[in-house]
């Protein structure tokens, strides 16, 4: 499978370095033979369809092909991106980021996404590049359109500036690196391309799910009209991105109280049953409270694999022979999609707050955003609505003091604190 191929290649290269040229030739010949009989020449880069959703929606091959064709009409290919004006995307930026790595006529480097991002995020932005399976947390799958670290209300998209910040700072405590050295223009182009992949992924999900909504007289085919494809499928997705700039969380001033007093108030809230932070982050703040839950990306895979498992167990005795065959074919497809097009679901740990490592940024403002809106796509809930802005600020102050709190709930056991902070 392709996420392993990098490593296989690398280790083979290492073997080859020590091998005689003769052996090298033999191996090479074998390889050539294998590939010649196996699959022929390298295909042009293509977007991988969301096969998990396709299997889940029980799409027929014709329906899968229709979705692929519609998406190609609306978004083009990885080498040749297209953006309808309704998306609000800037095609010249997309061209800088798209395609194979190459330099254009004036020596400007193109193919930025495949050079810097796709080995983790995948050519399709499905979070399944070749290295993805080895990383924890997994790289973001942009296709459902959920983003975590942003200045907007929980369910809103990130602003352009939010994504620029992520690319410049990276995500502390994860494998997502900083790309600040690429410079403004390239980061800007990459952000545009992330939005493009995300819109494409969301449009794909809407299209695949729409087959269920069809009436009998549609004969299992989506209408290929502008009214349906642009107004009903594309616009609702694109508008959410355009609205993000208006959805920035309003942050009032930090209340003017003594910092120690504020920390004490925040501490009370953190452990109390009004803010409930303790339930997940634990009495120690080490993130060892509620830790057997999944984030939304992993939950989708977990729930569906549970469903497929129980379908394997379900009795087929009342089915006709054809129904049984159909059922078995669907199960086989589902198993294959889960094995080849999804990463093994993993639980998510609430953050260890003793380490002072914050993925969404360490400024007090960043923490205010995180606590106000929670973390979209993750179990971490929003405190806004139940806590006042002043109370949120007190909690921010307490959270910021946690890494340096030596006599907190961990008690006088200083050495344990020291160890766990590392």
């Amino acid at each position: 499978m392709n996420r392993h191929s990098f490593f296989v290649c690398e280790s083979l290269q290492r073997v080859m370095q020590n091998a005689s040229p003769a052996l090298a030739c033999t191996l090479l010949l074998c390889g050539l033979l294998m590939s010649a009989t196996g699959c022929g020449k390298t295909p042009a880069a293509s977007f991988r369809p969301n096969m998990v959703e396709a299997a889940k929606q029980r799409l027929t091959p014709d329906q899968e092909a229709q979705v692929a064709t519609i998406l190609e009409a609306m978004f083009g290919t990885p080498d040749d991106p297209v953006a309808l004006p309704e998306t609000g995307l800037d095609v010249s930026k997309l061209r800088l980021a798209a395609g194979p790595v190459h330099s254009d006529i004036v020596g400007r480097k193109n193919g930025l996404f495949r050079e810097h991002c796709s080995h983790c995020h995948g050519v399709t932005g499905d979070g399944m590049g070749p290295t993805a399976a080895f990383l924890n947390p997994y790289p973001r799958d942009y296709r459902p359109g959920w983003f975590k670290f942003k200045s907007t209300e929980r369910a809103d998209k990130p602003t352009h500036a939010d994504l620029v910040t992520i690319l410049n700072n990276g995500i502390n405590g994860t494998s997502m690196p900083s790309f600040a050295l690429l410079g403004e223009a390239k980061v800007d182009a990459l952000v545009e391309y992330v939005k493009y992949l995300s819109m494409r992924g969301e449009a794909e999900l809407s299209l695949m799910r729409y087959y269920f909504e069809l009436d009998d007289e549609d004969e299992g085919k989506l209408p290929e009209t502008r009214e349906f494809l642009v107004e009903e499928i594309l616009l609702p997705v694109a508008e959410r991105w355009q609205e993000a700039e208006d959805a920035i969380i309003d942050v009032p001033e930090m209340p003017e109280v003594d910092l120690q007093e504020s920390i004490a108030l925040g501490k009370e809230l953190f452990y109390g049953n009004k803010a409930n932070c303790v339930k997940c982050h634990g009495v120690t703040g080490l993130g060892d409270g509620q830790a057997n839950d999944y984030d939304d990306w992993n939950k989708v895979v977990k729930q569906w694999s549970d469903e497929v498992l129980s379908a394997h167990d379900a009795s087929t005795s009342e089915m006709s022979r054809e129904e049984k065959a159909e059922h078995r074919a669907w199960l086989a497809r589902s198993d294959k999609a889960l094995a080849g097009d999804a990463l093994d679901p993993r639980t998510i740990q609430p953050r260890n707050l003793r380490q002072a490592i914050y993925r969404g940024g360490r400024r007090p403002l960043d923490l205010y955003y995180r606590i106000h809106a929670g973390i979209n796509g993750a179990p971490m809930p929003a405190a806004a609505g139940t806590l006042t802005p002043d109370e949120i600020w007190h909690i921010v102050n307490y959270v910021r003091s946690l890494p340096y709190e030596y006599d907190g709930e961990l008690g006088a056991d200083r050495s344990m604190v020291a160890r766990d902070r590392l």
Partner: protein
Amino acid sequence: MRNMRLTSEKRSVFSCFVAHSLLAAVLLTAMTGCGQGRLAAPTPDREAAAVLRQSLSSEGGDSGEGGAAAASTGTGWGTLTGRFIFVGTPPGAKQLVVDKDMAVCTAEGRKLFDQSLQVDEASGGLANVVVFARKAGRVKEREFSAEPLVFDQKACEFLAPVFAARVGQAIDVRNSDPIGHNTNVSGTSFNQLIPAGNGTLFTPASETGMPTMVTCNIHPWMKAYAVFRKDGYVAVSSSDGSFTIPDLPAGEEIEFQVWHERSTGPNGALAAEEPELDWSSKGRFTVTLTADETTDIGSIEIQASALGG
């Protein structure tokens, strides 16, 4: 010219380099290209895509036909009612694993059970089936109830395992426990901390389509479903299996969607053997109502196999 002639040492280094970079390329192609373990992906039809793109980018292309939903001709309003009956022996409910806040959730040896299949022992009535109108040609104007609907949780269970509301109707999400919960309505913006003994208002802003899952991330065994419809034409069957949807437009064909949490149909669509109602494999049936009358579709039998045996 001189540059082109390689010493033999250089040549072997060069050929080695070529060999293994080629091999790497070949292997990569073989492994990524073929992907034996993966499902075959469909190939887009290039030409069709190019033609379609043309029609999508030309403003006001072929959006002509279709326009407004089928014009509605009827007048007056009718009521739909019916009942779901479970056929077979319901399997025993699974006990849930409760490993947090046991003092509250499992006080005095209390056990929590999976609530996804609730069958009335006496009548066989199947509770928590959702029925909603897919589209209605006319929608009767009704006020939202001034008091918010209540969606409560107590002793670490949602009191309504399946909950229906109209888009725009305020819902008081309550927590009647002495411990904190968070309520997470997937597919909406709502995932909020609900302090002990407190509540917060949530007003759904858009439709859910099929019911969406509601969870508490602090207590992951807690699970419910919510369905929100713009026209409010939605009902959840009660403990005796019956449901009623009032104020529906009379004199037009209305297609209804039926859902159950355990259904093995696509997206939870519930199968039934009801040819007279045109019951489809997508769990839909069609009825035309008469003004000022209640149309009873009678008892709909649901086979155990439709709910996963």
